């Protein structure tokens, strides 16, 4: 299959009836890669209700949108999704395929890479086309962010990777943009599933998805108690952010596991990360060191996070944060 394929694909996830905004980030990088390879930019939709998503993806930069629509795609059934996606890959042999490194995207990409018999790079934070070989070079953090590795897939196609959300901006919308919509017939009977979807439970108020937030206010041991986290919440609300926590705060039951940043929690890449009362052990840094801007607020000027942060503020979080809140309110 080498060198025959001329399309760069992105997976546009539809989650509970909504087009995932990460799709528009993937289109941004796909367009950039396509400039180097000459590929067409294609988006793949798998859903039970396509709405106007294909047109939206075209407006946001897709040249072709492959649409697979069937009621068997109502919920994320990894057995069906992976088989269908493999069929789509085999039918159209893309050159590059970028999937979102969301929880569903990471698992689906891994399963599909085996079924489609190709190599996969996980959770990349930088994608480039090599000038000479025109191969995709996907760079990703390993060893909890302590080492970056650039990976390529030389022979097999597509060159697959999952890309960490919020790595690239979203493409702009151009309502006049034209593109092609190709329907992919879903032969539902063909796809065997050993999975039955039972139910979905939405997040509680304090469990907001920290991976999707551009501003994170995180608390650690120094935040001490519920009152402290209530302050963090106020600060987060005043700047459109989300509250997250270090392992210490989660283990103390102050925040749910889902909000834990770090090696055994989530890896995030917000534009602004405000670390409050977090010492910044290696395990924590592994989850947030690739944030665009890190602000650290800590009583201890010698805490490791203070040297890693762009802005280090020495002070007690219980004194600093109320002042931040009141200052941010006054325009």
């Amino acid at each position, binding site marked *: 299959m080498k060198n025959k394929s001329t399309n760069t694909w992105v997976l546009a996830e539809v*989650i509970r009836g909504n087009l995932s905004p990460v799709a528009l980030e993937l289109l941004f990088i796909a367009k950039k890669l396509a400039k180097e390879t000459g590929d067409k930019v294609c988006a793949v939709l798998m859903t039970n209700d396509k709405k106007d998503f294909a047109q939206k993806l075209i407006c946001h930069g897709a040249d072709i949108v492959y649409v697979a629509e069937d009621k068997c795609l109502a919920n994320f059934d990894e057995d069906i999704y992976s088989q269908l996606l493999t069929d789509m890959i085999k039918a159209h042999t893309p050159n590059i395929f970028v999937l979102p490194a969301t929880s569903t995207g990471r698992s689906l990409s*891994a399963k599909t890479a085996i079924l489609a018999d190709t190599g996969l790079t*996980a959770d990349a934070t930088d994608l480039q086309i090599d000038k000479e070989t025109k191969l995709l*070079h996907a760079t990703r953090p390993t060893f909890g962010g302590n080492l970056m590795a650039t990976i390529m897939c030389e022979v097999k196609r597509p060159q697959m990777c999952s890309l960490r959300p919020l790595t690239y901006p979203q493409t702009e919308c151009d309502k006049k943009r034209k593109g092609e919509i190709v329907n992919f017939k879903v032969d539902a009977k063909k796809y065997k599933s*050993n999975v039955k979807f039972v*139910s979905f439970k939405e997040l509680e108020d304090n469990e907001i998805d920290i991976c999707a937030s551009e501003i994170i206010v995180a608390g650690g041991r120094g935040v001490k108690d519920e009152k402290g986290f209530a302050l963090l919440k106020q600060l987060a609300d005043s700047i459109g952010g989300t509250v997250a926590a270090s392992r210490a705060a989660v283990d103390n039951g102050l925040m749910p596991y889902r909000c834990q940043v770090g090696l055994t929690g989530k890896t995030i890449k917000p534009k602004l990360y405000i670390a409050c009362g977090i010492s910044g052990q290696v395990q924590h840094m592994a989850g947030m060191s690739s944030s665009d801007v890190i602000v650290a607020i800590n009583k201890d000027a010698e805490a490791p996070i203070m040297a890693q942060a762009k802005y280090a503020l020495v002070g007690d979080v219980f004194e600093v944060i109320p002042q931040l809140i009141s*200052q941010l309110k006054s325009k």
Partner: protein
Amino acid sequence: MKNIIVCIKQTPKSDNIKIDPATGCLIRTGAESAINPFDEFALEEGIRIKERLTAQGKTAVVNVITMGPPQAEAVLRTSVAKGADKVFHLSDIAFAGSDTWATSYALSKGIQKIGNPYIIICGKQTNDSDTGHIGAQISAWLKYPNSSFVRKVSELGDANITVERLVEDGTDTINLSTPAVLSVVKEINKPRIASISGRISAKTFEITTWTADDIKADKTKLGMKNSPTKVVKSFTPKREANSIVIEGATSKERANNLVKILKENQYV
């Protein structure tokens, strides 16, 4: 009898990572190693599932499998100390340098050789390569259903199991027919500490070691040479060299100055 199979990996414990600049591979000699921290939860869940099945009057066996160099045997002994019944070591130079495609293939062949699985459990990811691929990829090779990010195994039926998995906007409850492959997150349990008697019996426990031929693996699917992905280069990420310490005589003043900076740079 229900075969529970837990996949684990020995990974470097220390934060001082040394990489061979020529191959882009980890230099393992000399680095202190341990069971991958995420696999602790997989092993614990395997043991708990056995305990639950035993309470239902069923017979269950906890099998632990790892692929790695001879010294990886140590993590199998740790597993025995905690309660594994049988341990298997895939060890062959043919496996060396495998990417996730080749590793998951080798593990799937090892699992087939163990035979008749009920549940296969992996950790969410490793702390060295961080891919999180292996569970889903084993399931693809074996054509089994799978779930990643499992935070609870709620029901253990004869032919199917019910699990809760974390997704960005909530929690899915799904039912999988067995055999099924799960990748579990930290939230699922609190790993036990090995008992003294467990540690003693682990020292002399007989480990089954298998080569690529033993598990009937196709050697064109193993090792660095046959892995579809290759490491082009590796490098240490740039860290913020110059932290800016926010000035001010009091906490209040410093807070005011920080807000000024945040606003000026349009971070908020």
